């Protein structure tokens, strides 16, 4: 089944006078993992925030499960089954780890204790520290907590904004393992923004490339992984950048 879970149409979002999204359209189908690649400042975070209502688009529509959701309060959108793992962790520093996780299940009516155990099994350190304030966790531990909190919501659609930020290589692999597993076993649809394009493209079914607030490329993850531009700018596969050699400034030129 390939019905559309999320459909973003011609969205334009501004920060005051600055136009961060210049008419973005993407589709995410049920059961898919979709990744968005893009350099710094391309607007990836802005897109994620716009989808879940943390920012209001000035133009365009966003529909989730066929219902228009743009310009609603974020908590309403979340309640309909979207969960965001935000860039930069955003934990509740004075609450304990367990309270943080429990808040992840705030919108759920059913019992979430199984999922709590599941999160603890993914990240044993969180269990060890569950009665401590989360503000003192290391950067990576907070990232685990943020991911765990997102998982607790058991959403229909998960938005992950740079989930691997600050995680060790081992954990990065584990996280993507979890993502694949959730997708395969529980059919959670995923939209992932990731700087680590290797692993993102390896995990995703489909990908978009966002540059300067515009989608400049879209396609199957495999096709993208094989495209020359992607290889050069996102996978770092150009060999002339050897150590000691004079480097050339070759910046992306899609405008």
């Amino acid at each position, binding site marked *: 089944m390939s019905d559309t879970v999320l459909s973003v149409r011609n969205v334009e979002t*501004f*920060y*005051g*006078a600055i136009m961060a999204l210049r008419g973005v359209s993407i589709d995410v189908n049920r059961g898919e993992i979709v990744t968005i690649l893009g350099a710094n400042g391309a607007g990836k975070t802005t897109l994620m925030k716009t989808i879940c209502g*943390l*920012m*209001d688009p*000035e133009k365009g529509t966003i529909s989730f499960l066929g219902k228009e959701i743009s310009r609603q309060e974020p908590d309403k959108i979340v309640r309909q089954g979207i969960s965001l793992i935000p860039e930069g962790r955003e934990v509740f*520093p*004075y609450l304990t780890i367990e309270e943080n996780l429990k808040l992840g299940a705030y919108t759920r009516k059913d019992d979430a204790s199984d999922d709590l155990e599941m999160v603890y099994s993914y990240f044993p350190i969180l269990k060890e520290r569950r009665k401590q304030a989360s*503000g003192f966790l290391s950067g990576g531990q907070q990232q685990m907590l943020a991911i765990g909190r997102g998982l607790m919501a058991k959403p229909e659609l998960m938005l992950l904004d740079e989930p691997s930020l600050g995680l060790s290589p081992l954990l990065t692999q584990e996280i993507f393992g979890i993502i694949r597993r959730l997708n395969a076993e529980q059919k959670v649809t995923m939209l992932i923004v990731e700087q680590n394009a290797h692993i993102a493209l390896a995990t995703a079914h489909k990908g978009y490339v966002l540059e300067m607030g515009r989608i400049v490329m879209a396609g199957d993850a495999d096709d993208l992984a094989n495209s020359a531009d992607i290889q050069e700018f996102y996978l770092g596969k150009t060999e002339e950048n050897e150590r000691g050699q004079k480097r050339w400034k070759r910046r992306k030129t899609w405008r």
Partner: protein
Amino acid sequence: MRIAFKTSYDTDIDFHEHWNNRFWIIALVVVMALLPFIVSEYYLAEVANTLIFSLAGMGLMLLVGHTGQVSLGHAAFLAIGAYTDAALMNAGWPFLIAFPVAGLAAGLFGALIAIPAVRLSGIYLAIATLAVFVIVEEIIILAEPITGGVGGLFAPTIEIFGLSFDRYANLSNFYWLCLVIVVLVTLGYSNLMRSSTGRSFLAVRDSEVSARALGIDVTRTRALAFGLSCAVTGLAGALMGHFIGFFNYELFSIFISINLLLVVTIGGLGFIQGAFLGAILITAMPQIIAILRDGLNATAGIDLGSIPGLDTIIFSLILITFIIYEPAGLYGRWLKMRVWWEIFPLARRDMFRRQKSYLKTERQK
């Protein structure tokens, strides 16, 4: 849109990139200087009052807007300035010496307070300064021989080189005196903000850890800011004393502290210009409301004056509306308007619509 071609670092170091900005500032000062020949006593006294509030506002702005420390007790430093100045002049000191010494006294007292208080921040500092304020108030009452106790005292007349600068007898002279002082302080303040001391204030405001990591002594910096802030406020206090002419401790009430906070926030936190705009709003708005009210009564026969306290409510409602629509303050609004003009035909209508924003805890330093 104007473009400045920068040919040396001095272009950035100087106050203004453009000659015409400089022109406007000079023009403003000239007009201000000529004001006594243009307007009546009523307006002149109001402008003098506004200048004094701007001065006090600059004092608080340095602390709240530029160093991120909040004081609910700045009325105390106004008082220290006013009483020191009056006491010294009563002891025979000339104004030209008593006045700076009054500022210095307020500044030193402020720095003294700051040393134990620098560990405090946010509302904790606000309450500590409130406590200091109450204690200063009591000390003023107790120090009757100097302060006149609760009865208060008359400010001595200012005389400089045989010329009288008395507020009631020679308002124009007094006004010019205020103007000169305000101009000088503004210059000094702007200089401070374009040099490393000013930058260290901003650093301490935005991130203490980073400031430390850059070698900034946070404790010293905050104490210095507190001291400077109090000194400027003290100068304003001395002028206020002369302006009002008679005062007791009730002049320096908590409401004055609150008014000063209104000045800096409504004006625009973090901008020297904000202190002026805020002072203008706070001192002129009630007068404008009153004048409009009188006008309404005279022309349309609608007598709002018969509802006691309505002026204050209208003023409060304006404040509320204002803070809702422009939390960045008057100067923030001005900056936006300027941008809008500069790119005029290209400006979007809702260019300045606020994007949603979210706060995070400020309990972490």
